[in-house]
């Protein structure tokens, strides 16, 4: 009943309040004094509350980056934890201003759902995890025919899973839950043999299982999962802001501007750096965006560049220890490519 009610409220809100929601989000946000950001309910490295109750993670830091650009304060954000199923309704209805919740960019979400993807903060792909101790001798996803598979409802995961098993003429038994916690408990207690989701998610979830070392992630990657921040249709200015905060993070890394050297960089005489940080004479790059000219400097000062965000949350400095891989900058053979700031 609760879900029905929520969806009902959601659609009622779409119906009645869509007017303010489609108006200038920036003005709304400024009037509120904070950004309302939709994140996942708890996925280590992406968005999870730490011991002190502060939200941390790559997705969370992106929200903070936008808050830093708008308010010069990375804490001017309030987080709304959303399940996969709830997230789009929450964004469409204006309950959140920005959705930064490992959401895959797909055509139907971009069109029929009325959403705009601002970029790809993490290139991922779907994988499978099994308990290697209980299922010895399984080392490929192609051996999984007949397995019970745990998966979260309302995800691309659910769809890729169906396609993959069908394409390989294998059977499976879907065990579908709405909440991440429920999927984790079910997998941990042996309700299913296999856990499938984005690979980054698998690594994060493995840490929370009762004996993480027993579990292995199978080598197959069965899909493309470009994960990124999302806004709703109908507000180009807000879309631009979110998009360019993302590019600023990438350009800063490319130009070697980091949280550590931001003070010196402000005095840099390199034209690229000056344009990025708004120190160029007479610049109006920031004000054209609807922000101050030091918008990108604020972002770097408070949350660092993309590389720093990555290493801190999911990379070498985190328990996840994920390597940059395809998420390296294009200059280093990866896919991350910041559009020119000029």
């Amino acid at each position, binding site marked *: 009943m609760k879900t029905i009610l929520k969806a009902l409220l*959601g659609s009622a809100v*779409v119906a009645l309040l869509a007017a303010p*929601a*489609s108006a200038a989000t920036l003005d709304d946000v400024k009037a509120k004094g904070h950004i309302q950001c939709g994140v996942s309910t708890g996925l280590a490295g992406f968005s999870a509350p730490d011991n002190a109750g502060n939200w941390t993670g790559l997705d969370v830091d992106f929200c903070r980056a936008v808050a830093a650009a708008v308010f010069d304060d990375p804490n001017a954000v309030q987080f709304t934890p959303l399940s996969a199923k709830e997230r789009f309704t929450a964004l469409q209805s204006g309950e959140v201003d920005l959705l930064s919740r490992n959401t895959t960019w797909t055509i139907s979400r971009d069109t029929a759902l009325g959403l705009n993807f601002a970029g790809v903060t993490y290139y991922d792909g779907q994988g499978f995890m099994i308990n290697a101790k209980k299922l010895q001798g399984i080392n490929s996803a192609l051996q999984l025919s007949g397995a*019970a598979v745990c998966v979260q*409802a309302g995800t691309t995961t659910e769809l890729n899973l*169906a396609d993959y098993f069908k394409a390989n003429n294998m059977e499976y038994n*879907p065990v*579908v839950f*709405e909440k991440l916690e429920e999927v984790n408990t079910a997998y941990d207690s042996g309700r299913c043999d296999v856990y499938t989701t984005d690979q980054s998610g698998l690594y994060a979830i493995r840490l929370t299982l009762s004996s993480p070392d027993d579990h292995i992630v199978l080598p197959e990657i069965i899909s493309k999962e470009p994960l990124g921040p999302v806004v709703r249709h109908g507000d180009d200015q807000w879309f631009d802001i979110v998009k360019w905060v993302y590019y600023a993070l990438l350009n800063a890394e490319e130009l070697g501007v980091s949280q550590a050297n931001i003070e010196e960089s402000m005095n840099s005489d390199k034209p690229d750096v000056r344009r990025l940080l708004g120190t160029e004479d007479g610049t109006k790059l920031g004000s054209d965006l609807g922000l101050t000219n030091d918008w990108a400097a604020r972002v770097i000062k408070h949350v660092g560049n993309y590389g720093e965000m990555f290493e801190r949350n999911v990379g070498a400095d985190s328990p996840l220890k994920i390597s940059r891989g395809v998420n390296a900058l294009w200059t280093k053979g990866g896919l991350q490519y910041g559009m020119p700031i000029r």
Partner: protein
Amino acid sequence: MATQQTIAEGAAPRVPLLYDPRVRGIAYQVLVFVGLFAFVYWIIGNTAANLQRANIASGFGFLQGRAGFDIGDSLIQYSSDSTYGRALVVGFLNTLRVAIFGIITATIVGFLVGIGRLSKNWLINRICLVYVEVFRNIPPLLVIFFWYFGVLSVLPLPRDSIALPFGSYLNSRGFYLPKFLWGEGAGLIALAFVLALVFAWFVRRWAYKRQMATGERFPVLWTSVGLIVGLPLLAFIVTGFPLSFEFPALSTFNLRGGVQIRPEFLSLYLALSFYTAAFIAEIVRAGVLGVNRGQTEASHALGLRSGPTLRLVVIPQALRIIIPPLTSQYLNLTKNSSLAVAIGYPDLVATGGTTLNQTGQAIEIVAIWLIVYLGLSLATAGFMNWYNARMALVER
């Protein structure tokens, strides 16, 4: 209005139109109606405009689209190639299945416990009391979690399944039963069964008439049982035992073959049944207590023994008290079945929610939910009202 009308028709004192209660009454109704209409019109227009502005698709065309997701538990043929419409039907049938089984079980358990509460046996009485108090005071969601995480998920893994009689097994993936594979001639058995039912009905009618006419009684129950068991059995023998079984057997991951009853269904079904049964027990107790003791005494005085007294005198009267509140319990059970999402049972809310998430058609899906639950509730209530009318005092 009625009383005002009589006055107006009687002496007809001349009143200015503005103060005429009848005119006023009509005017108010027209006003409310127009207001309501304008409100609905505004809501619909506003919704459509906003949906368009937000670029969200609308209409029911999406029901023909390919769903793309699989559903674990389905009563009809369904695959990821099926349409969204079919996915919703699968969800609806799952809701219906758990509601129907739940209602039947809750009624049986509820009646037993309710009668148990009235028992003079101290132990039975107390056990029933504890049952009612425990289940009545726990939110249904917790009861569902109790069954799912507390009972069914701690069962052993498929490799170490608990073997039960008749080749059935119990493990953390559910309850596995052998599957009946009917061979040639099975249709005849089904036919025999239907025939037996029809016969039994005629026998009952004939016996009733004869008892009314002559006072002689006929063992209807035993004849019916004999018919219903005997005829199909005969057909079974005649057709040469056209039945074989497919037993569940262990494969790499799970038990394969046989019939699997999944733990999601089981826990939802058990939870709803036992939860609702506690309320039904109280209703039954109230119903029985509501029949005047004098009725029992009078019946005894007429020479009826305890059994027939209960069956012919007390229960028919108690039922009249029981049925109306029982109906609301049935409705509650049906609506509570939407708690299924919490444990991943693919009911209408779950499959509808996934459809909503993929197509973004919130308004359409919510409308479908509302209509289906409303329809289910009205159908249940309609049936119970019909039954109630049948049970009502018929004066002769």
